[in-house]
């Protein structure tokens, strides 16, 4: 089966808690003022992306992060993706709690040798909270700056996020 893109987001779609959130920013006017979310090198910062599971969805899902480093020209990054899938009438009080599945962690991914160049990082979402068509879902994307294998300095600037399923 060929993977299908079921959703993509710009960084401005990211939703964040009041702490440990990536810093929103824009690149220079000369570059077209691209929006980004800057994920810190030293702190585990996360952003959430909301979607409704499409009527036809197959697992496993894969998250693809398009990113550029703010300054780093060497080293690796580690990110994780976590899914929350709420079916109508599930016992989840959305005012009071979240119900994320277990994290899915990427492999260590080398950053481009030039800051500002785009690379992509893939996370297979093996743990997807038994997602089903019509579920109210959130995908939490986090840079795990505290991971010893995340060795690149400076911010990871997320430029776009894509979600793929396993195809028809």
């Amino acid at each position, binding site marked *: 089966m060929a993977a299908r893109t079921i959703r993509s987001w710009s960084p401005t779609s990211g939703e964040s808690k009041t702490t440990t959130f990536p810093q929103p920013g824009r690149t220079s006017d000369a570059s077209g003022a691209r929006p980004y979310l800057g994920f810190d*090198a030293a702190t585990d910062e996360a952003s959430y992306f909301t979607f409704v599971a499409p009527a036809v969805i197959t697992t496993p899902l894969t998250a693809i992060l398009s990113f550029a480093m703010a*300054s780093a*020209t060497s080293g690796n990054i580690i990110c994780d993706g976590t899914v929350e899938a709420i079916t109508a009438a599930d016992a989840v009080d959305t005012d009071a709690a979240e119900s994320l599945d277990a994290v899915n962690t990427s492999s260590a991914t080398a950053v481009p040798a030039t*800051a500002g160049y785009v690379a992509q990082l893939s996370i297979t979402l093996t743990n997807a909270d038994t997602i089903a068509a019509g579920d109210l879902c959130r995908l939490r994307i986090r840079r795990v700056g505290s991971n010893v294998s995340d060795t690149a*300095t*400076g*911010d990871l600037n997320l430029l776009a996020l894509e979600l793929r399923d396993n195809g028809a």
Partner: protein
Amino acid sequence: MAILVDADRAGVWAELMRMRDFGDSGVLKAELRAAVDAVDAWVEASQAAFNAALPLPARSALTARQKAKVLMDVVSRRFGVI
């Protein structure tokens, strides 16, 4: 004055990593942290020598904080940090 506690060293390290020119150096996070730790240790070991280098009456009249400010400003100016 003792060396910085781990959280303070980590705070310095994190702030440095937010500065654009540190990433351009190709230095990895652990290597930058080692540099922070080494500088803190060097400051600890060099306090007495620095103090002795100050002429009187500044040596006795200035507080440790004021002496640190003198050092910061001179070093920053010498190396183009400010």
